[in-house]
């Protein structure tokens, strides 16, 4: 604009058939930023881990490692949680841990899903004491862990332990155990006494510590229909609870146990 119109603009001096080229260099600010970014990248190579070498990688002058940083961050947060009083925002009850780890099987409402027991009622397969719940979470049930709990419902039908008519009679007896008038004088009741009560308790009243559920309440793990009970009797059951040792730390396992006890208490009262 300040340039007078009558003065021709500077050209590169090239000419092709009368066509000339203006000299329009890249603005200095762009050229400078380009050089600057190159310089910064070289600086970063020096400061941070970058080039692989023959023996080792270049660790960087700052000695920064994202892995060390995150491990320290996790440790720091864990220390804070250990110190924080329980049931505060820093250390909420185990509900978050439960949603992340347990809800997939036991359900987000803790009411269980087909094949996975409910945690809301007062009935426990093993025991409702804190130490025993912690042991169940830590070592699991029917896992490869040496301290795992072990429990298996035999395949009475498939393995030929009882004939089919008898199984059907037992299934009908078991289905009625939680009803108003179970028939304790039938032949099926006697067969139950002989074959099932060692784990499920007399008249299916349960026996904590065997891992076998009580059968006279309204809760069913695999379903309370005749078909489901027959399937359990025929092919057996061997539910697996994973061992959480190694995946969850002691504090987390204890918080989960306290959470479960709290839920069971709230339901029972």
């Amino acid at each position, binding site marked *: 604009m300040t340039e007078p119109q009558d003065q021709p603009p500077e050209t590169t001096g090239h000419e092709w058939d009368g066509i000339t080229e203006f000299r329009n260099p890249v603005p200095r600010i762009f050229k400078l930023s380009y050089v600057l970014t190159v310089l910064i990248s070289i600086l970063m190579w020096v400061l941070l881990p970058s080039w*692989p070498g*023959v023996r080792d990688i270049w660790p960087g002058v700052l000695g920064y490692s994202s892995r060390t940083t*995150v491990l320290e961050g996790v440790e720091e*947060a864990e220390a804070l949680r250990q110190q924080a009083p329980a049931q505060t925002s820093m250390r909420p009850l185990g509900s978050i841990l439960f949603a992340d780890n347990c809800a997939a*099987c036991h359900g*987000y409402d803790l009411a269980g899903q087909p094949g996975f027991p409910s945690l809301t009622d007062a009935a426990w397969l093993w025991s409702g004491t804190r130490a025993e719940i912690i042991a169940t979470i830590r070592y699991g049930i029917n896992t490869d862990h040496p301290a795992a709990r072990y429990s298996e419902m035999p395949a009475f039908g498939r393995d030929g332990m009882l004939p089919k008519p008898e199984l059907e009679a037992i299934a009908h007896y078991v289905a009625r155990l939680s009803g108003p008038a179970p028939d304790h004088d039938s032949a099926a009741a006697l067969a139950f006494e002989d074959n099932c009560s060692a784990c499920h308790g007399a008249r299916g009243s349960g026996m904590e510590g065997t891992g076998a559920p009580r059968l006279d309440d309204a809760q069913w793990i695999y379903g309370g229909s005749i078909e489901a009970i027959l399937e359990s009797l025929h092919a057996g059951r061997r539910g697996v609870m994973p061992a959480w040792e190694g*995946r969850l730390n002691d504090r987390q396992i204890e918080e989960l146990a306290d959470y479960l006890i709290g839920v069971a208490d709230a339901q029972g009262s």
Partner: protein
Amino acid sequence: MQNAHAKLERHSIGFALAILFVASLGGLVEIAPLFTIENTIEEVEGMRPYTPLELAGRDIYVREGCYACHSQMIRTLRSDVERYGHFSLASESMYDRPFQWGSKRTGPDLARVGQKYSDAWHVAHLQDPGALVPGSVMPSYAFLSQTRLDPGYLESALRALRFAGDPYGAEQVRDAPRHAAWQADPEAEYEDELRALYGETVQLRDFDGQPDRLTEMDALVSYLQMLGTLVDFDALDPAEIAR
């Protein structure tokens, strides 16, 4: 400065050499680190090649496009580590061709899903994900339980991997189809033989709840139950990991 450009332009051989130099930088940066890969991957205890059954499961995982919604890469972020466990190590993908890191999580990360849930859960979940996880948009893979696994191809699959450098022995390649059936045998009759070949971390059992059939569900669940369980994190050298 203003005429440097003009000078360069007018020397065609020099200019061609300059182009060659600049273009080679890109290749250099991408290729040179591959020659030093031995030095940049952590040394850890426990990594082993896939068993034939796990490999078949991995092939199903790739075939069904699981990687489109599930990553297998726990990042070095506190939120990731607290939810999924120890961040993924480069060495944990050393037998993955190609790796399954993924770049998008519609579902959760699966890098350490192994032994987090029971086999029965995996089978029930793959058959009807929405029934177990409310709000899940994962489609049903119930057909895997009905599809018999054809393990015949595993021999050539292992041979190819051996050619690519995976440490499979001649016996492992030759008997791969048989080994796949051994791993899903409910009686675990050949446990000692499989462990001798593949180590103590091999899990042997009927995975799909159908003891008399070897299905694609067996293969996929065996693969899922193995994910992230190989490395012995107690034996990790912190200095090696911090590099």
